[in-house]
């Protein structure tokens, strides 16, 4: 069966599409961007790409597919822009989003999110790079010394309980000694 002859059931349902749109809206809302206002770039392409992969009864979640497509684009986009700032490409969205919010991208460059790299204003790219934060500071490795477990036998535990350092008997004798002095 080719695409042209696909029946109605071969397409994601209205509910699936709505769920996908909600997820995409939520994703872009985390950048302070109203995705529905820019649906040609931020919603429709991902619904289309998800639809290309999606098959009925495959068990695939259409909304999750659309979200994955958008995330993949975001990762590629930010990784290209913040290449020198990232230790790990997987941090691209996290760092990129913080940079975008920190440089006021939401208000100053709301239209630029996921725009073609070659068309981005230089000021925006510079601001993004300048504001990109580190998720963690540089490591300064130390050691956490795990204490060994050594136990007294039950009998010696009881015998040692009172006179142990800081114990009651020590306190009493110390107190009496001090008074005597």
């Amino acid at each position, binding site marked *: 069966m080719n695409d042209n002859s696909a029946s109605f059931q071969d397409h994601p349902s209205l509910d699936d599409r709505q769920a996908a749109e909600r997820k995409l809206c939520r994703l872009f809302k*985390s950048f302070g961007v109203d995705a529905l206002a820019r649906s040609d770039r931020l919603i429709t392409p991902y619904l289309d790409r998800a639809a290309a992969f999606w098959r009925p009864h495959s068990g695939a979640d259409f909304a999750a597919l659309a979200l994955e497509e958008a995330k993949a684009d975001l990762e590629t986009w930010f990784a290209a822009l913040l290449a020198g700032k990232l230790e790990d490409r997987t941090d691209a*969205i996290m760092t990129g989003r*913080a940079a975008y919010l*920190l440089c006021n991208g939401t208000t100053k460059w709301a239209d630029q999110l996921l725009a073609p790299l070659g068309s981005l204003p230089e000021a925006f790219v510079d601001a993004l790079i300048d504001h990109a934060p580190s998720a963690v500071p540089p490591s*300064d490795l130390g050691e*956490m010394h*795990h204490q060994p477990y050594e136990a*007294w036998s039950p009998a010696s535990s009881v015998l040692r309980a009172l006179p142990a350092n*800081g114990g009651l008997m020590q306190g009493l004798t110390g107190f009496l000694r001090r008074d005597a002095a």
Partner: protein
Amino acid sequence: MRITGPLRRLLLTILVVVGTAAAVRLLASVLAADGLSIPKIGILVLFALTFAWVAMSFWTAIAGFLLHVFGLKTLARAGQLKEPSDGAIQGRTALAVPIYHEEPEAVGRRLAAIYRSLQATGQQDAFDIFILSDSRDDDVVFEEQTMWAELCAELQAKERIFYRNRDDNAGRKAGNIAEFCRRWGKRYDYFICLDADSLMTGDTLVYLARLMDTNSKAGLIQTSPQPIGGKTLFARIQQFASALYNPLFALGTAFWYPGRSNYWGHNAIIRTEAFMADAGLPKLPGKPPLGGEILSHDFVEAALLARSGWSVWLVPEVGGSYEELPPTLSDYAQRDQRWCQGNLQHMRLLPMKGILAVNRMHLLFGVMSYLASVFWLLLLLLATLDTAWQNTEQWAYFSDGPLFPTWPISKTFEMLGLYSITMGMLFVPKLLAMTLALSDPLRRRGFGGTFGLIKSTFSELIFSVLLAPIMMFQQTQAVLNTFLGRKVTWKGQRRGDGVEGWGDALANYGTISIMGVVWALVAYQLAPDLLTWMSPVLVGLFFAVPLAVLTSQPAVGDVARRFGWFLTPEETDPPAVVLDQARQDEIGDQADKEGVEQAGSKTQDQSALSAGP
């Protein structure tokens, strides 16, 4: 003459041992009047254990009360924890916030409130915040990262707030903190461990850092967090009880254990170098439930620090430290199950070499906090059995009390005396706390005025009486589950704002209620008087289901608040940081609501257009 910690604890031990011995002697004289039997010996042993446990708590509250009344709060520091001077903080401090599948937005609001409060002190440069995620769910991780990005932007806190998600969550919370220490511990002199629901004021954070600067032998300083933000009736009652009674108990605890106090796992400042060198958790020999990875880490870490000569302080007089409580009885019980497993594991640590005697006591108290329920249940069962046995012997031993048999007439006076003493030890601390609050105009107003405070205290007393037998059963079940190596699976799931439905409550508490009914019938058959005396226990069991449902309702909690029930000073006159968080919560809730409505309507419109056949 300075009264040292060991001497204080000697005094506490004498008070508890002498009081318990006297009570046991009195009970023994009654029980032995007609000869001792095995059940009676069992009753005596269990009574001794539970009475000692109650006595310990009683004398802790009394110490706290006396220190309050005579204005001697500073005695709790025993002259050893020196007051810091104002000025710039010397050491750098990390706020370490381990999270695991928490609600990211709520965590973010709390951290924002803390950060703004720190900014107000002008000392924020001495602090960094680390969000240490152990979450495994990708969606949750994504939300957490969003929260971090928004925090950085909103607070202009680039390179001041950090986020990391661990590849694996080995060692759970303790492992999370240990990993933080290994990677970044050397960068910070101190770290303050915060739970996801912790809230602290900037002033308190700065004060704690200065305390550490001033007291170089202090390894850990624990604040006494006050519960806030309770919406359900259950949470509101618990937070009221905590606000009213904790000042007494915490100050008493600080007095008995100066420099040898305990760690409660959060809202405490820790000397990083000491922690890394001396507080790495050992792995216990054997298999779970008692062996393997240490589940409840805080008491053990305090013990390890103390073993290496570091002092551990509780500073209840330092305010500005808050936490939240489980919203429902079931949530509370689930947390209890977790803590129970961890605390019982501490039995394996009691004989660990080098641990100070006082820390063995702390560990033992942790164990006892769960075993006490088992002992109490056994005591009640033995009392019932003994009554049954006496009845077959034509003796009417058990018609006068839930804990104590009915004795020959000549011993009734002693029994009533003993019963009154036990009840007094349970309730007098609460009444003293109320009296103390009534005598302080500011606190009295905070609790809703004289009438509000009195009616709330007595209502809480009734609630605690009803709750106690339910908790007794749940904790006993938790102990059994732990020893059997089982994990409790709750049949019901919490919904929305902590509401527990009737179906869930029936599944969770139906058995307890049935046991209450059966017990009541048996008691009635044995001796009607026994039923009368046991009624406080049985009524609690019988009403477990409706109690769980009713107290889980935020609406009921709200009605109680509006009528001046269970108000707390933090609620009546909220500190700036609490107010800030509450305001953010309101804005967030409103935005979520509007967002859902807006997205819903827009999506519907657009989808109708874009979704072709």
